[in-house]
């Protein structure tokens, strides 16, 4: 399969296109996700549809450059409208997003249906923008994507500090004198560009996933912005290539859904297995924490019993030491296990009839803990 990429011309073009798309959307998606604006991509991609239709109606050309320019303008206007609504009324941001998304998309469909009825118009292919058809990519489209990729990377490097501040603490950025409104506009414009670039291969309906999923995946592996961007671009590019290869082997399969499936699975895997943040990792850590906590809680209870009985090493049975209510020691078996652990450490001692009490050493340990903490026990 890999050899095919290098021999088959179309597949090669499509793969390069997917890699470029992955880099662009991975980079800018990172900012969208960090700024909690994940769904802006969904709105932008849907809102691009009327631009494609209008561009075709006005210019009459099916050249990608013109269609994407129209898409860019429509999507950009939509983001401005959403912001205007949000700032000038009590309509919430998500309502504004949802409404503009649907209204623009509806208008786009009106235009497409109008175009379809124009006699002799060479309109076939416009509907490929709905779910993407990477095989329609041409060499010139790749060159355009490459230029945009370079432009994106340069912009991100130029505004590195500003975008970072904007993403993590925009209030602070505002206070120290950055024009957050302008920066926000620049970043949003870049995100719009990223979405528009992907319309040809992923389509308007699913393009938002290309912004969100790679960024969500990379977020799990690192806390550092630069690494997150590099990882997210890599995930985006990787899923683009894998998705393209899979879809090219199934007849009539649009590329968008396959790429989205791959990239989302990468995100799910990252959320499960990434070290430190991943769910499985957290489970394992929880287990060890609980184990350690369990022994400490048993010792603490033995200490409390010792104190309650007038400072006497009086042994108690398991029911008295019982810690069911804590949710950490679930059963008597577990309690016994913890007690034996303490015994090995010399902190607790077993008496006849399975009764237990704290030892002098355990006492010293508890008192040193409380002494260090500088507070009395409850």
């Amino acid at each position, binding site marked *: 399969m890999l050899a095919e990429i290098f021999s088959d011309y179309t597949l090669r073009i499509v793969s390069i296109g997917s890699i470029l798309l992955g880099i662009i959307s991975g980079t800018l998606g990172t900012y969208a996700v960090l700024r909690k604006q994940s769904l802006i991509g969904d709105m932008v991609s849907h809102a691009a549809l009327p631009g494609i239709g209008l561009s075709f109606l006005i210019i009459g050309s099916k050249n990608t450059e013109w269609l994407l320019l129209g898409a860019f303008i429509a999507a950009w206007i939509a983001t401005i409208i959403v912001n205007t609504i949000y700032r000038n009324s009590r309509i919430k941001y998500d309502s504004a997003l949802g409404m503009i998304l649907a209204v623009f998309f509806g208008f786009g469909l*009106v235009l497409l249906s109008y175009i379809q009825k124009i006699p002799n118009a060479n309109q076939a292919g416009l509907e490929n923008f709905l779910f993407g058809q990477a095989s329609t990519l041409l060499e010139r489209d790749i060159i355009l994507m490459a230029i945009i990729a370079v432009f994106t990377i340069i912009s991100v490097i130029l505004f590195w500090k500003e975008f970072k501040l904007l993403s993590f603490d925009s209030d602070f950025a505002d206070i120290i004198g950055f024009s957050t409104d302008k920066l926000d506009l620049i970043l949003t414009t870049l995100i719009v560009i990223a979405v528009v670039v992907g319309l040809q291969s992923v389509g308007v309906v699913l393009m938002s996933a290309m912004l969100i999923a790679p960024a969500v995946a990379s977020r799990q592996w690192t806390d550092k912005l630069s690494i997150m961007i590099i990882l997210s671009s890599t995930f985006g590019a990787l899923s683009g290539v894998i998705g393209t290869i899979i879809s090219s082997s199934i007849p*009539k399969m649009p590329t968008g859904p396959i790429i989205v499936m791959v990239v989302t699975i990468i995100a799910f895997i990252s959320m499960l297995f990434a070290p430190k943040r991943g769910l499985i990792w957290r489970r394992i850590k929880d287990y060890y924490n609980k184990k350690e906590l369990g022994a400490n809680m048993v010792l603490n209870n033995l200490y409390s019993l010792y104190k309650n009985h007038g400072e006497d090493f009086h042994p108690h049975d398991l029911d008295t030491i019982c810690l069911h209510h804590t949710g950490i020691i679930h059963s008597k078996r577990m309690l016994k296990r913890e007690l034996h652990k303490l015994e090995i450490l010399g902190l607790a001692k077993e008496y006849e009839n399975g009764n237990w009490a704290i030892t002098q050493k355990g006492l010293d340990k508890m008192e040193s803990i409380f002494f260090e903490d500088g507070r009395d026990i409850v």
Partner: protein
Amino acid sequence: MSPQLEIQLIAILVATSCALPGVFLILRQMAMMADAISHTILLGIVLAFFITKDLSSPFLIIGAALMGTITVFLVETINKTKLVNEDAAIGLIFPFLFSLGIILITLYAGNIHLDVDAVLLGELAFAPFNRLVINGVDIGPKSLYTMLGVLILNILYISLFFKELKLSTFDTGLAAALGFSPVFIHYSLMTLVSITAVSAFDAVGAILVLAFMVGPPATAYLITDNLTKMLILSPLFGIISALSGYWIAMYFDVTIAGAMATMVGIIFALIFIFLPDRGLIANIRRRKEQKYEFALISLLMHLINHENSPIEREEAGINTIKNHLSWDKEFTQEIIDKTLDKNYVYIKDEILKITDKGREFALSNYSYIVEQD
């Protein structure tokens, strides 16, 4: 009934059924969850079709509604891990499930007469072709009865749980404390949204369901924040959009659903821009007035501060004062003209002097400035 009348009746029912739960969606900030549901029900329909092998089976609606609820559940599950924000969780789940739906349709395209375009975009013009025939008597288009059923369900749900919905929408904590289950309300509402979406979806398509769910309630919310009024106004705006959209679509010979969604946007825009008191124009005008009033008072306070001081000629000179207030020339002249008009100042020896009337005005409004700041 003529097909034209039937289509318009269906459109009215769709608009009303979508607008009612939509009010709660926008108040609970769940608009994008509705977007997610309107996409994922596609997978529900496909999966239910695989089981029943019948596109007109009512199980399709059940399957789709179930998938809507599953979507909500999955988003919340991801939310609970705290690994991603809620918006990212929505954006992760729905493209995934939707893609799965598209892939299944494409893979089994030969066996399913389920066209992706039709599901996603819908075509109201075809609705009258699908008739409901009982005992050999044609009693009208099927979707008319489906939508009527959904509308009744929506009205019943909202009237039965009105108190609970209201309380859990505006004060989740109190609702929980009083013993209402916010989780029950949340899931039942989202299930209702799914049922409404899947039924309307036939006629207007998945994405345009969203236009009807969010647009008319948002328009109503511009006008009132009274829940009952919103529940009356929203369907009204929905119906106006639906009917005007229908006639525009007929005139230009374009997709009916698309034209209706466009009208939803246009009606919102009209009210958003022209609404007296709170509309965009009123807002801009008010801001401009505030800007002038603020400038007027700033100028007068500046004059009071430098009255009879040694540098009064510099600070309050008609040609130099602009430097001290950091205004440009035109704006300064405009403000000076205004103060002269109102007799707040007079010019003596090229120096602006404040009058008693001006002093009174400035001092009485001083607190206003401070509060504004």
